[in-house]
C-alpha cells in the first residue's frame, strides 16, 4: 500500500481548485450583473442571447458528461421550449414566468419519450437517431399551423415582472437561470443519482450490479438533458424576442454539439459561456463568410466521428491534455 502522503497533495490541490472556481464564478457573475449599467442596448441584447445559448450548450454537455452520449438533435428540445413560451404567451396571455416551468416539464416528458424507444442505442447509432429529431423540427413547427406562426414565427414580448424595463428582463432572466443551473448541477454531481449516472456511463455493468439498470441511466440522463434544453429554448425565445422555424434546424443542433466540445463539455459557468459565445457568434460569422460553411460542416462531422463510441472518455483525455481543467 502506498503511503498516504502521495495522494494527500492532489487532494489539497482539488480542494483549492474548487474554491478558486467558486470565487472566479462569483466575480464573473457580479461582472455580468453589472454589465447593463455600462453597455449599450446592442450588447445587452447580444450577451442575453449568449447566456441563453450557454444554457443550451449545458444541455448537450450534460448528456455527454452523465450519459456518455452525443446528441445532434437537441434543437428539437430547444424548439420545444421556445415554442411553448411563445404559444402560451400568444394563446393564454401568460409570460415566460409560466412558460418556462411548463417548457421544462414538456422537455423532461418528451426527453423520456425519446429515450425510452432508443434506450438500446448508443454511440453513433444514438447520434443518428437524435439527428432524425433535429431534421423533423422545422416541418413539425409548420404542421402546427397558424398557432405557431408559420415561417414568420411568433413574437415574445410579455414581461414576467412589472416595473422593470423589458430589455433588462431579457438580460437578467437568462443570467439568473444560468447561474442557478450551474449551482444545481454542481449539487447533482454529489447526489446518489449523480454517482449512479457517472458509474453507469463508464461501467454500465458495475452500475447494474449495484442496483441501477442501463435503462434507468439512459432515461435519467436524457430526460434531464432535454429538460435543460427546453429551459434554454424558453430563455432563448424570451431573450431573442422571437421564435421561428429556421432558428431550429439541424445546423442549430450541430452548433450545440460543437459548442459543447469546444467547452470540453464542462458544466461550470465559464465552460457554458464559452460554448454559448461560440454558438452565438458562429452563425453571424458564417452569414458573412458563406464559403466556410462546408469546412465547418466537415469539422462538425469530424467531431462526431472522433468522439465516436466513447465520447466521455475521449473528452476526459482531452481535458487532461489541455491542462487538467476539470470544470464543474
Amino acid at each position: 500500500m502506498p503511503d498516504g502522503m502521495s495522494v494527500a497533495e492532489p487532494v489539497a490541490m482539488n480542494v483549492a481548485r474548487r474554491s478558486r472556481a467558486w470565487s472566479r464564478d462569483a466575480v464573473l457573475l457580479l461582472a455580468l450583473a453589472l454589465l447593463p449599467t455600462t453597455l449599450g442596448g446592442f450588447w445587452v441584447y447580444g450577451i442575453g442571447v449568449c447566456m441563453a445559448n450557454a444554457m443550451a450548450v449545458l444541455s448537450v454537455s450534460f448528456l455527454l458528461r452523465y450519459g456518455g452520449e452525443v446528441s445532434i438533435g437537441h434543437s428539437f428540445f430547444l424548439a420545444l421550449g421556445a415554442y411553448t413560451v411563445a404559444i402560451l404567451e400568444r394563446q393564454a396571455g401568460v409570460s415566460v414566468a409560466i412558460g418556462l416551468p411548463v417548457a421544462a416539464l414538456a422537455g423532461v416528458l418528451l426527453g423520456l419519450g425519446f429515450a425510452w424507444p432508443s434506450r438500446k442505442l448508443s454511440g453513433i447509432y444514438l447520434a443518428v437517431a437524435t439527428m432524425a429529431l433535429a431534421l423533423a423540427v422545422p416541418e413539425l413547427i409548420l404542421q402546427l399551423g397558424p398557432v405557431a406562426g408559420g415561417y414568420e414565427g411568433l413574437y415574445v414580448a410579455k414581461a414576467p415582472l412589472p416595473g422593470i424595463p423589458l430589455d433588462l428582463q431579457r438580460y437578467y432572466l437568462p443570467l439568473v437561470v444560468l447561474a442557478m443551473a450551474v449551482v444545481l448541477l454542481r449539487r447533482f454531481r454529489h447526489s446518489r443519482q449523480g454517482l449512479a449516472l457517472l458509474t453507469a456511463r463508464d461501467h454500465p455493468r458495475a452500475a447494474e450490479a449495484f442496483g441501477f439498470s442501463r435503462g434507468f441511466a439512459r432515461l435519467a440522463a436524457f430526460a434531464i438533458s432535454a429538460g435543460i434544453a427546453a429551459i434554454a429554448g424558453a430563455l432563448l425565445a424570451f431573450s431573442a424576442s422571437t421564435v421561428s422555424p429556421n432558428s431550429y434546424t439541424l445546423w442549430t443542433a450541430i452548433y450545440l454539439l460543437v459548442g459543447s466540445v469546444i467547452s470540453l463539455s464542462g458544466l461550470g459557468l465559464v465552460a457554458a459561456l464559452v460554448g454559448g459565445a461560440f454558438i452565438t457568434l458562429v452563425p453571424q460569422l458564417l452569414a458573412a463568410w458563406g464559403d466556410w460553411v462546408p469546412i465547418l460542416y466537415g469539422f462538425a462531422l469530424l467531431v462526431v466521428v472522433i468522439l465516436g463510441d466513447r465520447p466521455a472518455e475521449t473528452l476526459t483525455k482531452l481535458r487532461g491534455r489541455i491542462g487538467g481543467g476539470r470544470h464543474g
Partner: protein
Amino acid sequence: MADALTAEGINLAFGGHRVLTDVSLDFRAGQITGLIGPNGAGKTSLFNCLTGLYQPQQGSIALCGRRIEALPPARRAREGLARSFQHVALCPDLTVAENVMFGRARLGKAGWFDAFLPLPRGRAEAAEARAAAEKVLARLGLSAFSEALPASLPPGTQRMVEIARAIVAEPRVLLLDEPAAGLNAAETRHLTEALRALAAPDLIMVVVEHDMDLIMQVCDRIHVLNFGRRIASGTPAEIRADPEVVRVYLGDPDD
C-alpha cells in the same frame, strides 16, 4: 437449503461455445467459499450468471430458497448480491469515497428534488452515506485514500476499493473476482486478514482466486471448475488431496 446461494444445472453457451455445462453448486452462509480453476474455466461467467449479467440457457438460481434467476441484475442487487470485478470497474471521475458511497446509493430514498436542491432529507442521507463509506474504508485500511481518484492508486488498492464498494451496503452475498490479482506479498497478507475479518454468520462469501495460499488459508469450502464443469467440491484439505484437481489445476505443469 435455507441460508445459501444455490445454482442448479446451469448451462451457458455463447453461440456454439459452451462456457458452463450443467453446473450445480451451493455457497453457504457463514462460510468463505473458494471458486477455483484454470483460466477460462468459467468462474467469472458463473459470477455473471449469479448476478444476472449473463442469462444462462438453463438452470435455476436461488438465494435462501427464493428463486432469483428471472430477476434483472439491478433487482438482484436489491436482494443483497454484491460483487467486485476482475477488471476494476470504478468510476474514474469519482473519488474513492464517492465510489464507495455509490455502493449503497440504491438504498437511498432521496428523490430527484433532493438530487438538485439542498433539502434536509437528501443532505442527511448524503452525510449518512459518507459516514458509512468512511467507516468501511477505515475497516479496510483505506482511509488515507478517500479523497483520491482511483487512477492515482496502485491496482491492488483499487481492488480493495472495489471490495469496500461491495460491502458498504452490507450485502447478504459477497462475490469477489480475483481480489488478489496484482497485489504484492504484503498487500496479499493484508487482504487475507481483511477477508477473514469480513466473514460473518449470515454472509455468503465467494472468492475466485488463483493465489492458492490465500484460498487455502481463508476458505472453508472450495468448488473447482474446469472447462465449464464442476469437477470437485470440498474442504481445502480434500481439494488438495483430490487427484483430478491436482492433475488439471494444482499440479506442477513441469511434471
